[in-house]
């Protein structure tokens, strides 16, 4: 079953604008991760945030985590046409060392030049 649900399903912005994607989940998590997928390709890891962290940054990416609301957001600042891709959140529960990630349905981001 899917754990994370992204919102919106699709987002279209102009180059230079900021893009915000949200993820909600249902059960307690060990960590939450964000991935990017270019069309027809595999996923690339962006950021991992642990359940005891509230915010992380990586370049133009900012991720927040609110465990009380069971939600996370990914902010891409100063977007570029090359940021056009699908973005997925994935949650890791407490299941030993299996490292099983449960992915959401994704947000498709289009950045217009």
């Amino acid at each position: 079953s899917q754990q994370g649900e992204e919102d919106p399903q699709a987002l279209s912005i102009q180059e230079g604008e900021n893009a915000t994607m949200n993820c909600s989940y249902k059960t307690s998590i060990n960590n939450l991760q964000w991935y990017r997928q270019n069309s027809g390709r595999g996923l690339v890891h962006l950021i991992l945030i642990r359940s005891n962290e509230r915010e992380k940054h990586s370049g133009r990416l900012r991720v927040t985590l609110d465990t009380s609301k069971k939600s996370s957001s990914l902010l891409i600042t100063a977007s570029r046409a090359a940021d056009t891709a699908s973005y997925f959140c994935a949650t890791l529960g407490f299941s030993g060392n299996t490292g099983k990630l449960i992915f959401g349905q994704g947000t498709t981001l289009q950045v217009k030049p």
Partner: protein
Amino acid sequence: SQTIHQWPATLVQPVGSPLSLECTVEGTSNPNLYWYRQAAGRGLQLLFYSVGIGQISSEVPQNLSASRPQDRQFILSSKKLLLSDSGFYLCASGAGVNSPLHFGNGTRLTVT
């Protein structure tokens, strides 16, 4: 860093034919390995995972099976494909808790 090799990139198979997709991992040892399937425009569904040679866990009942004959080799198989087996199959490798997954570039399977 890890590199995940998947082949073939695309595959068209008739209903009822067998399937074998192979995934090999470079740059790490004793990884956790995963097979995910992605339907068009959808998220990833975890099919199988393995924490060691010969150790396979299935997440959903289905027409597929997986094997791990070597530490860094993960194989997805079917004896008889169904139309519903069509999709984008992704192999991933990870080191466990608090480690990201590394993905291959996937195999797009079309069952006709």
